[in-house]
């Protein structure tokens, strides 16, 4: 069965072959750096291809005329839900457990490498 969905995927691939809409290796490196991810050379190529094909698909949003349309802030129309800025004391046990979930901790403190070098 020929599926229109699969045709669409095919069409996108074809489009990619015709248009060099692909992210460059450098761009992928930059994105990875912003995302705090390390990627190997091999993965870089794969990400280039996969991210480009997804971006190409979502690019169809630019086909839609959105002149004068307000972007959504909240889908149910909520606006600035406020509450008092109060401290709600937690049990010693909870606080201890929270600190203990950190991979490194000492004397009830979370431990990290220095922020400044």
């Amino acid at each position, binding site marked *: *069965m020929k*599926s*229109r*969905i*699969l*045709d*669409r*995927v095919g069409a*996108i691939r074809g489009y990619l072959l015709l248009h060099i809409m692909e*992210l460059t290796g450098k*761009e*992928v490196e930059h*994105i*990875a750096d*912003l*995302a*705090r*991810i*390390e*990627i190997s050379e091999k993965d870089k190529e794969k*990400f280039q291809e*996969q*991210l480009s*094909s*997804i*971006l190409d*698909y*979502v*690019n*169809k*949003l*630019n086909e*839609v005329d*959105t002149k004068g*349309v*307000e*972007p*959504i*802030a*909240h*889908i*149910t129309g*909520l606006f600035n*839900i406020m*509450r008092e800025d109060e401290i709600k004391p937690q049990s010693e046990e*909870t606080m201890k*457990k*929270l600190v203990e*979930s*950190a*991979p*490194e901790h*000492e004397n009830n403190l*979370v*431990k*990290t*490498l*220095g*922020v400044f*070098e």
Partner: protein
Amino acid sequence: MELNQLTIKECHKGLVSKDFSSEELTKACFKEIKKQDKKIRAFLSLNEDGALTQAKEVDKKIKNGGKIGILEGVPAAIKDNILIKGLNCTAGSKILENYIATYDATVIKKLKSAGAVILGKTNMDEFAMGSSTENSAYGATKNPHNLKKVPGGSSGGSAAAVAATMCVYALGSDTGGSIRQPASLCGVCGFKPSYGTVSRYGLIAMASSLDQIGPFAKNVSDLKCVFEAISGADEKDATSIQKRGVRLPKVESPTPKSFKGLKIGVPKEYFIEGMEESVKKKVEEAIAKMKKAGAEIIDVSLLDPSYGLAVYYTIMPAEVSANLARFDGIRYGYSVVQPPHSPPIPTESSKQGEIEGAKNLLDVYKKSRTEGFGKETIRRIMLGTYVLSAGYYDAYYKQAQKVRALIRDDFRRVFEKVNYLVTPTSPSVAWALGAKFEDPLTMYLSDIYTVTANVAGLAGVSIPCGESRGLPVGLQIMGNQHDDYGVLGVAELCEKII
């Protein structure tokens, strides 16, 4: 009939009339898990002691003549991205392999106070990112109807656990179809409440403007029981819907009692040629039955759902990249500084600059995240980082939020003409394990009929409507925001005639 095969209402009746005890019921579920789960792999961890202790307490209450609630003593399975105090919560990710929750999610608090018995945590795509449960760091779950097929996802473990009667009901989460699509593929009922109806507090966040917790069950009336127990405003989730601090009325529009007078919309854009012919046929048969039962079937036109999918695959990764920034190798979870299972690093050797593999703080972030996250998670974090990055924000993210506004208005317009919409849940039945694994875009397209409900904040339910090649087909019913009980009401009517 084995006890584990019963529905919530049947369990309740049996417990009240002392036909069996909650302990027997709970043990029947564990027996079924032990019998089947080596093959299906729906569960990531079991809570045997906790479950049996709770069951015995309920039995004691019944023995002493106490009155029990509908969920009291009834065993449930919980998706592994919902926190239960003292239990491991992995979200299907290696990065949370050893994480123990320090508090209960609001839905768990509510279930516990309703007396529920919690059997264990179910498998899922890592951080709920996927449509097949193959993205779990702990291996794929199999479809109980055919072990060579996927159960759908991301709540595939919960769907499979209900389908294989290893529990009476389950909780899942739905960001783009992650309850409805696996419910459809596994032949059970699954409900995504409208946005803000169920508190997200204690749900490990994926995409906060789209996530909702909801139930899986063997029938619609059970869905309703669980939904009633878990819904309601919560001060800990500012996006939960409050009306002057009071819980929303149960019925926004009257719950339909019969099909007569009901206007059911059938959006033609949701029946594209490419969908599996047999799925289309089963859904059309169900619609014909609704018509025969007195419903007015109206053809309607909506924006092509592929725009909804494009909005989804822009906004969701953007929110993912922000939400998953918290996994930094410092506060919780996997860290290159001290990987799980390795002996604690002695204080002397963990001085700055002496940790193997990480020279500085940035290295700790990068290496912990790279080693801790799976491929699909990394893919979505990167995609989200890109669409939010300087120079691209307007073209992708802002444009997506504008199209999202148009999609919301599109549904509003349609819900002025019809009461509910009926569509297939998924364009196909369950596919073979591995078939779409290496092709993210094709995998994403399997969410095409479900994402729009998340994008527009609507309520949606999937119920079984027959089989194709021995695999279940799902029917989706969508209703307007806050019309949750209406959607469940129509689903119950459909269930009777299909």
